[in-house]
């Protein structure tokens, strides 16, 4: 039984469906990476899982439980966590408060998690009292990631976490992702820095026009010339 499984998912924003029949399955031990052209439906997929738009067909199951069309705030307690691609920080709240919000469902002591996050992004230590809206693009990205980690998820969903990060931080983040996964947290991420990401992905999915194009291990996709040419920029 896989940690999360999308079965023939059909979803959209009210108009014509954007996703028509997407299949994705991830184990707790997996790092799943979704790649594809702009507008393929990658973010839509994640949003659909997280109840930010209505699923009109197919189903989403998490650890055996059917969570299709659950409201987002019901998913977090189940152990899902999500970093959206855009608008992914509370701009008017300080960095610290952003993290607290990430841990909203937790009532226990947060200090260890906070230490963990600040250690992961030392730059943010100095800015903990600064409104996230005043951060640089990359710093926002770090805050967003940190927020998601605060809830101690079972499944972590990241939409282009490396966008806007310096190469150094991109690596940093990818290493962290691997670490977190090693700690038993399933990862499902969308990436445009596909080569680097697929390098450590255990599962890779290529989406185009709201449908699965290729599926396999990261390595398989990297080696597939077709994929490389039309999705990974040769």
């Amino acid at each position, binding site marked *: 039984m896989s940690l999360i499984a999308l079965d023939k998912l059909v979803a959209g924003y009210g108009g014509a469906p954007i996703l028509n029949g997407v299949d994705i399955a991830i184990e707790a031990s997996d790092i799943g990476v979704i790649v594809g052209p702009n507008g393929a439906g990658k973010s839509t997929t994640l949003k659909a899982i997280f109840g930010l738009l209505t699923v009109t067909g197919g189903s989403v199951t998490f650890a055996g439980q059917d969570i299709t069309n659950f409201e987002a705030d019901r998913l977090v307690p189940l152990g899902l966590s999500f970093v959206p691609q855009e608008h992914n920080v509370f*701009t008017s709240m300080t960095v610290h408060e952003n993290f607290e*919000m990430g841990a909203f*469902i937790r009532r226990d002591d947060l200090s260890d998690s906070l230490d963990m996050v600040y250690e992961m992004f030392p730059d943010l230590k100095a800015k903990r009292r600064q409104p996230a809206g005043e951060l640089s693009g990359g710093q926002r990205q770090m805050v967003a990631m940190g927020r998601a980690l605060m809830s101690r998820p079972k499944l972590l969903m990241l939409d282009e976490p490396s966008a806007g990060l310096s190469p150094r931080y991109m690596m940093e983040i990818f290493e962290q992702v691997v670490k977190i996964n090693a700690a038993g947290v399933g990862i499902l991420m969308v990436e445009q820095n596909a080569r680097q990401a697929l390098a450590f992905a255990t599962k890779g999915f290529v989406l185009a026009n709201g449908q699965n194009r290729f599926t396999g291990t990261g390595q398989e996709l990297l080696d597939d010339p077709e994929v490389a040419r039309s999705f990974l920029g040769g």
Partner: protein
Amino acid sequence: MNDFIFFFNQAIIGGVVLGSVYALGAVGVTLIFGILRFAHFAHGDMMTMGAFIAFVLAGAVAAMGIAFPLPTGFIVVPFAMVIAAVFALGIDKGFYAPLRAHGAKPVTLLIASIGVTMMIQGLIRLIFGVGTYSFFETQPKKLIRIDLPFEGVTRPISFSEPQLLLVLSTIVAVVALHYFLTRSRLGKGMRAMADNPDLAKVSGINTRLVVRVTWVIAGALACLAGTMLALDVSLKPDLAFNIVLPIFAAAILGGLGHAYGAIAGGFVLGFAETLAVFNWAVVLRPFRDALPEWIEIPNTLSLVQSEYKLTVAFVILVVVLLVRPTGIFKGAST
């Protein structure tokens, strides 16, 4: 000396009381704006409604023949607040929730709130008619007069018990709200939702609950404000509607979404109104002898005629906004 006490009674006490009235109204406005991001025009009439609820309760209590050292209207406020909160929830469910569901713009909600305000006004007048009521028909309003122990001082410092209560409850309400919003978990959750509803959900915040809590607090605050106002002045169907503009002015002047801003804004306006029309000749009179012959203190010496009282308040409002475009405390904005 008497003249200075006169100044104190007029300018200082007057300003503080008026400021508190505005602040107490503004804190509710600022809360709704801060969380739900729209200017809730019906807040004024929710205040009036709350006052009438309290009035009915007070009547009932008085009918039972129970008397208190404090004004009965004040004693029953907590209960009135509960009822008002329920009303507020109902109003939201009936008129605002559907619009939010459609993802309506803030201005649409504002206009809807104008509709609501009209309905409340109509109902209040239908039920209570157009007359004036007072909380002090059964018990007298306590006037506090403090004589100062200097010789030659005849004029006492004077204010009324309701005014004292008004100022106190304003301070309590504002401070409490401030701590709730900035310290409590739910309070922060509310701010998070105001900032970015989707992300708030993604963080596991139950936005529906947040909205409900907001309305409960807002309704209660409105009731408190209305009742305190009615205790100080008197209870009429148009009690708060006539000061809803200054109340909004205060909220915005202070910086929308900031509890303390309400106080700041309210007091600035309150004092502006009071001092602008204060007759400074009074405080000069004591020095009449000191002054050289040719200076003749005119009978009235105020900055503007009192027709322009409100004007002064608004001039100040505009000027302050020009210097600090989002209010004294940097406020939120849609």
